[in-house]
């Protein structure tokens, strides 16, 4: 029986789709059976980031409205046999998807896959409710900006009302020089305010944009910083204890690493 993880944020554009694509890819790299679901109806992106757009025939709304079987709508990844994508609909009416519809699909997918990773739309409306409906766990993505942290806090508040494990946090697009100069919130401050476990930090890395333009998730590149960060997150999802990546090129972060992982595991 698999586990469904929703990737959410509240605020738009902070990296949910990127995170979904990369966590999914990294888990597949570790030989897990993974299915990604794009729930951003009308603004589907995940297929583009995964480089699978040209393979789409059916989508999630077709499944819900029974125009096709679930397995017909699943797209096999071009790199990993064990990785699939259930794409969002690009044109259909948003109201086609319901929480019950999502729950049914996820329940079915959990029979066949180890991990279901759900890409959530921005906002707190029905799309968000649908995305979290069938999830067992949640990962909240924020950037080190006040507004993004504020929205993450709002989302965590909403998630806490659900029957779900406490969500875990990813801080994305960190720019070390800005943190150092005091122009960006630092990791400690964010974790203190949100007071949920940190499951990863990802620096702002041009490689992310480059590779998503090529439809190749950055987690596939051997040693860019963001790539390592995503693979570390995947390992933590699998239950390994992996220290946080150093933001510096030297080993300046070690004390911080100890602080987060010493305390919480």
């Amino acid at each position, binding site marked *: 029986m698999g586990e469904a993880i929703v990737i959410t944020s509240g605020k738009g554009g902070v990296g949910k789709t990127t995170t979904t694509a990369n966590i999914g890819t990294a888990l597949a790299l570790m030989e897990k059976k993974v299915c990604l679901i794009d729930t951003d109806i009308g603004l589907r992106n995940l297929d583009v980031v995964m480089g699978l757009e040209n393979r789409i025939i059916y989508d999630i709304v077709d499944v819900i409205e029974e125009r096709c079987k679930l397995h017909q709508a699943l797209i096999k990844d071009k790199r990993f046999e064990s990785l699939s994508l259930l794409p969002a609909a690009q044109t259909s009416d948003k109201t086609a998807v319901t929480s019950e519809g999502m729950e049914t699909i996820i329940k079915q997918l959990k029979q066949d896959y180890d991990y279901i990773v759900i890409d959530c739309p921005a906002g707190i409306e029905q799309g968000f409710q649908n995305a979290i409906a069938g999830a067992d766990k949640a990962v909240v993505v924020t950037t080190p900006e006040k507004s993004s942290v*504020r*929205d993450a*806090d*709002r989302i965590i*508040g909403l998630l806490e009302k659900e029957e779900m494990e406490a969500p875990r946090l990813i801080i994305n697009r960190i720019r070390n020089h800005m943190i150092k100069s005091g122009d960006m919130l630092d990791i400690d401050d964010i974790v*203190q*305010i949100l*007071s949920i476990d940190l499951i990863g930090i990802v620096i702002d890395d041009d490689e992310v944009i480059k590779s998503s333009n090529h439809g190749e998730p950055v987690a596939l590149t051997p040693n860019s910083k963001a790539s390592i960060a995503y693979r570390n997150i995947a390992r933590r999802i699998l239950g390994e204890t992996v220290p946080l990546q150093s933001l510096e090129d030297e080993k300046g972060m070690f004390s911080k690493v100890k602080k987060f992982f010493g305390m919480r595991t």
Partner: protein
Amino acid sequence: MHEKKQAITIKGTRDGLTLLIDDTCSLEAIFKELDEKLGDTQPTNDGKLVSVTVKLGHRYLNKEQKEQLHDIISQKNNLFVQSIDSEVIQREEALAWKEDSEVKTINRIIRSGQVLEITGDLLLIGDVNPGGKVVTTGNIYIMGNLLGIAHAGANGDKDAVIAASYMNPTQLRIADCISRAPDYEAEGVYMECGIIDKETDKIVIDQVQVLSQKRKSLSGFERRMSNG
């Protein structure tokens, strides 16, 4: 009409008049007697107001009846009603008092977009995050970080206080006073409290230690008993 016993005893004290009203006779009789008795009192010629305390004993008066009583007395020369005391209150009022004076302990984080409303005093073990809000009719004590909005004494109690382990709030509100964070980025303060300064009628922040001087009876029950 003439055969009735004394329903009202008037006592002069240093602070004015005290009217002791027998709690066994009818209200009409009392109003009537009051009208007659007070009509007799000579207006003092220095024009000073004489304060009147009415003691109802075990009689319960509703709001209109109290107003009526009040009107009869204040229509007389130089008299004003200081208070109308009764030994009894309604069950409802008593329950409201109890509710109002309890300290409710809540153990969670008030996150952005969440509002926690409480009757009485709040002991919050946890933070109020930016965008979060706590509102109480009594005092607010926070063992944690106050970064959002706290509103104490929301029904108008200006003696209410807001205390926190750490505070760097967006706004503090006590009764109808509001103070907001400065527009520049400020460091917060540890173990301090917000109270209304009686002289300026503005919220000031001070160390929690001043509360033992400035808010002697923080215990909500005593405070509200004496405030009515």
